[in-house]
């Protein structure tokens, strides 16, 4: 799992590559939480899932945890670029109801 993050104003844009599961979810969680703790003005999170080719409930749990943190700051968590199999899991879990899906980061940024 490769994770890159970039701050754009009060938004943290996180790009992930690989598989988000029981092994890699803690890495994602630690990196995002560290950014959120270091930069308290960050109030929104955009997760680019374009290069995530596998996700299961462990990965979804880690995303949901970040959603809760960002909500506590009054912000939003938006998902972009999900591959079909990832999108199916998001729909099955109901997470797509609380975290809107966008085709790319620019469209998501416009929504904030």
């Amino acid at each position, binding site marked *: 799992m490769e994770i890159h993050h970039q701050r754009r104003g009060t938004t943290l844009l996180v790009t992930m590559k690989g*598989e988000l599961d029981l*092994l890699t979810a803690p890495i994602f969680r630690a990196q995002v939480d560290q950014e959120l703790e270091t930069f308290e003005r960050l109030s929104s999170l955009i997760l680019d899932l374009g290069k995530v080719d*596998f996700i299961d*409930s462990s990965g979804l749990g880690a995303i949901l945890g970040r959603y809760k943190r960002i909500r506590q700051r009054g912000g939003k968590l938006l998902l972009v670029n999900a591959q079909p*199999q990832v999108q199916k899991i998001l729909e*099955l879990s109901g997470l797509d109801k609380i975290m809107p899906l966008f085709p790319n980061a620019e469209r998501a940024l416009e929504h904030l």
Partner: protein
Amino acid sequence: MSAAQNHMRMEFPSLPENVAFARTTVAVFASQLDFTLDELDEIKVATSEAVSNTVIHAYGKGTGTVTLCCQIFPDRLEVELVDEGIGIEDVDKALEPAYTTVPEERMGLGLVFINEYMDVLSIESKPGQGTKVHMVKYVKAPKPDGV
């Protein structure tokens, strides 16, 4: 009941590092049958959930052995996952959506996904006597009772 055309069995410690290994192995083995790529993805998710549950729950904070068996039949894949861990007190409760004994960032959706993606899921477990998870996926997904 026809005999299995092929089978495999492997053992590994209940470590998170082995979850991806297990799901990939099962999906590759399953590809001997005429599953679609979407169905192979579904088998990967179901296996990942089953193995993750074992890693998280079966041996508490310790590590134990997980045995994974797969059988190929002309019309189906059967997957069996066995541990000798602490077992499940109430299997019916464990099958309820959103039920989890580890609430911190666990969604309790693992068995929901398995139910969605596999045609048969059965769990045998008793406290202190381990757990056996049995999953079946049919080729082109006809239901076992023809419904």
